[in-house]
């Protein structure tokens, strides 16, 4: 009997509450952080992370995970630097090229996940090695990009009241979130992504081509990683193979803190946006504080991650106890599901007691 807890809104609500709390603490302690200038910088500094989070959200909603996004981003920056500096390609052409390659790379990853029936994390781990290795083979050094068009793009910004600037890269991130939101919540494809993450077996029974969806989901995620690479190279005006080492963890953290269930099927990009902002805020707050060191960011994000995973778990347990027992039926091939012995026996629990 539904409606005890709404699994869709509660995590997002918790995210918003956490964000408001942190923001309030910041505002009370350092009123300067309230200004649009700080906000503008926050968006610019985290633009690449936001774009990664959009792609990651789609993959996680589909019930998967992608550990290769940081490496793809690094590969993109190096490839861009080589194409523009080395081959002398105009930036626009280079952008198109790396985006296409990113999408293709992701499609390959998705195909491997689907056809090899291998866990997504191990396939994307392999992809991460591949991408990072290729990037390092192109160049192990940071390659600066000297290009007039690049300088213009990197410097382009909209003045905000209060001395703030909304840079082009921040704008791209905001647009990406918008596009990701429309894709996930407004298209047939988006519904299929949710269906796949809800229960891949059922989705297939309902006529969804799960293979196609898996491939497209990973292609989109890698495409976003390539876009994040472009944005990052605009931000630093250079290409470096080790760019984005470990950012996949930040992106996953943003997605989870944003209320998307790691088990798939529930979530959205709006929450991930707030998740990115929360991470940015914590970092900014620690910077403002000055006495605390940056590693507290990682610990704080880890703690938040634990908090949100625990909340999600509690919701799941509660809805399984009070809702219908089939709330989260296991598809035949969900290997990593913790199996609670015969509690889910088909013949038990589900049936109501006899009326007589």
């Amino acid at each position, binding site marked *: 009997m539904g409606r005890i807890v709404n699994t869709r809104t509660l995590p997002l609500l918790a995210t918003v509450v956490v964000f408001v709390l942190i923001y309030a603490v910041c505002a009370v302690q350092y009123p300067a952080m309230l200004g649009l200038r700080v906000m503008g910088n926050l968006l610019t500094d985290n633009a690449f992370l936001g774009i990664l989070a959009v792609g990651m959200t789609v993959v996680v909603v589909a019930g998967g995970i992608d550990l290769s996004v940081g490496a793809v981003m690094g590969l993109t920056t190096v490839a861009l630097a080589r194409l523009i500096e080395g081959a002398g390609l105009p930036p626009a052409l280079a952008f198109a090229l790396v985006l296409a390659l990113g999408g293709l790379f992701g499609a390959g990853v998705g195909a491997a996940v689907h056809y090899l029936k291998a866990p997504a994390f191990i396939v994307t781990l392999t992809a991460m090695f591949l991408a990072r290795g290729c990037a390092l083979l192109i160049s192990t050094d940071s390659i600066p990009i000297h290009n007039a068009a690049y300088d213009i793009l990197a410097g382009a910004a909209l003045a905000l009241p209060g001395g703030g600037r909304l840079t082009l890269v921040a704008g791209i991130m905001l647009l990406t979130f918008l596009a990701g939101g429309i894709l996930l919540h407004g298209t047939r494809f988006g519904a299929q992504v949710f269906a796949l993450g809800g229960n891949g077996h059922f989705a297939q029974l309902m006529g969804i081509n799960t293979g196609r969806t898996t491939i497209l989901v990973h292609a989109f995620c890698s495409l976003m990683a390539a876009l994040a690479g472009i944005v990052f190279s605009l931000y630093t005006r250079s290409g470096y193979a080790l760019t984005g080492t470990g950012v996949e963890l930040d992106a996953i953290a943003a997605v989870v803190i944003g209320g998307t269930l790691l088990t798939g099927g529930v979530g959205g990009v709006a929450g991930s946006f707030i998740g990115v902002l929360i991470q940015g805020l914590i970092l900014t707050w620690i910077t403002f504080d000055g006495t605390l060191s940056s*590693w507290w960011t990682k610990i704080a994000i880890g703690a938040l991650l634990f908090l949100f995973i625990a909340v999600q778990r509690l919701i799941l347990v509660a809805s399984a106890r009070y809702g219908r027992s089939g709330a989260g039926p296991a598809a035949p091939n969900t290997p990593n599901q913790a199996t609670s012995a015969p509690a889910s026996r088909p013949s038990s629990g589900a049936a109501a007691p006899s009326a007589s």
Partner: protein
Amino acid sequence: MNAVIQRLKAARPQLALLVLALLVNVFVAPGFLDLRLQDGRLFGGLIDILNRGAPVMLLAVGMAPVIATRGIDLSVGVIMAISGAVAAAGVNAGLAWPAAILAALGTGLACGLWNGLLVAVFRLQPIVATLILMVAGRGIAQLITEGRILTFTEPHLIAVAGATLAALPLPVVLALAAAGLTGLLVRATALGLFVEAVGTNPRSSRLAGVHTGLVLGAVYVWSGLMAALAGLIATADIKGADANNAGLWLELDAILAVVIGGTSLYGGRFSIGRSVLGALVLQAMRTAILRAGLPPELNLVLMALVVAAVLTQQSPAFRPMATRLMARLKNKEARA
């Protein structure tokens, strides 16, 4: 004797890979196989591979039972960093070296216990449960080292990586001993059977009276302990605790070593010995690339290719496909 032959037979693919990687080494660096005794310590290419591979061997030894229960431990690299930091901070704070080492190992146990609790009691997916420590762990390590590379001069702690025992570098002895002890622990007790049973069918195992929660918890605790030992070696090796880089991405090496060792990511049968061989294959590949003067980055690409091959070979979809392909080829031959 029979059992030994049986085991060697089972390890044929891993041995073949290892021999192949070693042959490449011989090819690019003649004299690779030479061993010489100097000051009571063996030197040579093979010893070098064993020594460099010791940390990943240790991680693989801890990871194999975890994967056999259908789990994964993403936090081992981070546990290395934390335990190394604890040891370094310990001796710098004036702790006696045995106490510092015990503290480091205890830290690894505690981290493993945390993972085990999340998986066995709170029933989180292993990848999610260990991700938490993976994210927060480097921050904790940096908290201990206060963001610096914490160097130390305590000779005993340095000896963990530098000393010689029975003509071998101590890390090699430690890794082999840990592998032996783990092998003994899982095969001389019933733990191995329980791990494989729980990994294959947790429901049946519980109905047969196996304490599934305890088994699940224990494998993560053990993995944490092995990671702590690996962390000690890594820290002793550079005479300092580097919270940022110690054990970075080594969890992936460990997983790959176990996968190359033939353990399915879907749980079930596992072998400590073959996982150790898997770790050595990775190290031999790395050494070969270095010796050949190729960019070390090529190693990442090669590793990816090896894993892709292993995954394809393991995948349930591949076998029938391969069988069909073979049948078709045979048909063609028959017609020709």
